[in-house]
């Protein structure tokens, strides 16, 4: 492009020279014109992006369609530790990633769905759920009821989310700057710390963690000490620590540990 313009300018000056019109001011003007050219960044190529038929987030059921609803125990394990499913991108480019464990209610899902569907441009962007609709029953006793008399009735359902799980995935012919604001607005309202991440930044995060594990200069690791039960340390550690290696306390992630 630039070379083309340069040749054009060169040709022009050549013509001037040929006609004998080569004078000082014109020549300096030419130089200024050549210096003022700006190189624009090449816009990203979205030729391989295919938008799905229904780009918006689907409605999620408030209550699962079960024949017989059964009461469950608390089972706090389902928010502890790192996510084992849906911890990387499938079709999208940008996502809200959970930075801790927690339970999502139907209200949260509805808030996310409405906000994202309203604010995103459905002609260029699509959004996908990476979580299931609420399936874990939470029981409550009715108001004014005396204690005892067995477990309460099912009050509502929630979706457990672990650290590192993708909640919503966005993709299409957009850049991060266009959708970041929508996603951060949503991520702030979630019941656990959540971050907006792109495919590259999530990969970088995981790579950084792997590098830290590789290059740790500390000869003593939590895993080695906990599994070897050195000085009877297992007395104060939970069985959960044997798997998480001190990176988690319950649903909370402790950053900067290996």
């Amino acid at each position, binding site marked *: 492009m630039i070379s083309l313009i340069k040749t054009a300018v060169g040709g022009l000056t050549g013509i001037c020279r040929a006609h004998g019109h080569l004078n000082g001011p014109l020549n300096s003007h030419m130089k200024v014109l050549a210096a003022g050219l700006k190189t624009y960044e090449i816009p990203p190529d979205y030729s391989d992006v295919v938008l799905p038929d229904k780009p918006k987030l689907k409605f999620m059921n408030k209550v699962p369609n079960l024949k017989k609803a059964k009461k469950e125990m608390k089972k706090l394990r389902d928010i502890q530790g790192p996510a084992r499913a849906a911890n990387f991108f499938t079709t999208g480019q940008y996502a809200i990633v959970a930075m801790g464990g927690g339970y999502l209610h139907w209200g949260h899902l509805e808030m996310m769905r409405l906000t994202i569907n309203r604010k995103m441009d459905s002609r260029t962007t699509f959004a996908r759920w990476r979580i299931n609709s609420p399936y874990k029953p939470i029981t409550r006793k009715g108001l004014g009821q005396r204690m005892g008399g067995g477990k309460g009735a099912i009050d509502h359902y929630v979706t457990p989310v672990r650290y590192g799980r993708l909640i919503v995935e966005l993709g299409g012919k957009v850049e991060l700057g266009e959708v970041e604001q929508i996603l951060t607005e949503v991520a702030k309202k979630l019941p656990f710390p959540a971050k907006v991440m792109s495919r590259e930044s999530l990969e970088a995060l995981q790579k950084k963690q792997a590098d830290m594990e590789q290059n740790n200069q500390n000869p003593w690791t939590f895993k080695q000490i906990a599994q070897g039960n050195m000085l009877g*340390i297992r007395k104060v550690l939970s069985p959960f620590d044997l798997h998480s290696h*001190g990176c988690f306390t319950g649903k909370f992630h402790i950053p900067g540990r290996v």
Partner: protein
Amino acid sequence: MAATLCVKYLPKQGWLPLTQSVRHGSKAVTRHRKPMHIHKQKLMAVTKYIPPPKAAPPGAYITATNRVQEENSLVILIKKDLEKLFQNCRMLAVVQNNASNAEDMRLLKHRLYKHGIYVRFFPNKVVQSFLSDSIYCNMAPLFIGPTAVVVSKEPKVKEMLMTLKSSPQMTLLGACIDNTLLSVQGVVHYSKLPSVAVVQGEFVSGLVMLTSNTASMLQRNPTHLSALLQQYIKQQSPESVVEKAT
């Protein structure tokens, strides 16, 4: 009364030594973090991540590419000039230039020029790289900061010192005179030495005196002998005999 007094010596009953009271209830609270046991806190502190030592910051060491870049034509020209200077000049004094203004510098140059001494300026990097390859590599530490080189074909140290004394901004750091590296003290001593012609004259006069001495010493014995003989003849002469008789 007795019981209270003897309590000290009786084994304590119903007393457990330093047990940790562990609470087993309310594990379902996920709102906040559970307080960590002190042993676990210690374990977490011991097993912290320690990053590998940081690599040297960029630019701390001269890279190979930098070294290659240095050899441009100007540098080569300056190096050639330096080489010529070191070959031709018998005196090369390194002087630190402590913010002397143009006027002072002009005056100094003029004063030195009267004695056939020149002030030259070279970039330190080029000088260092030149010196590192040459036999004058011991001079390299002198070229730090704003330096100038005072050169002359003849070692006119006294004149140079006199002129430098008049300009306080210029500090002598050292000098290479007749391929000998001298400190400031050495330069001062060198300047106090008499000139070569005087030394040679003294030497020659000494030699001449020796030869004249030998000639005189060689002549001395025969003259002494002749004097003795003359005296002897005088004594043996008839006058003396007459005198004896009388």
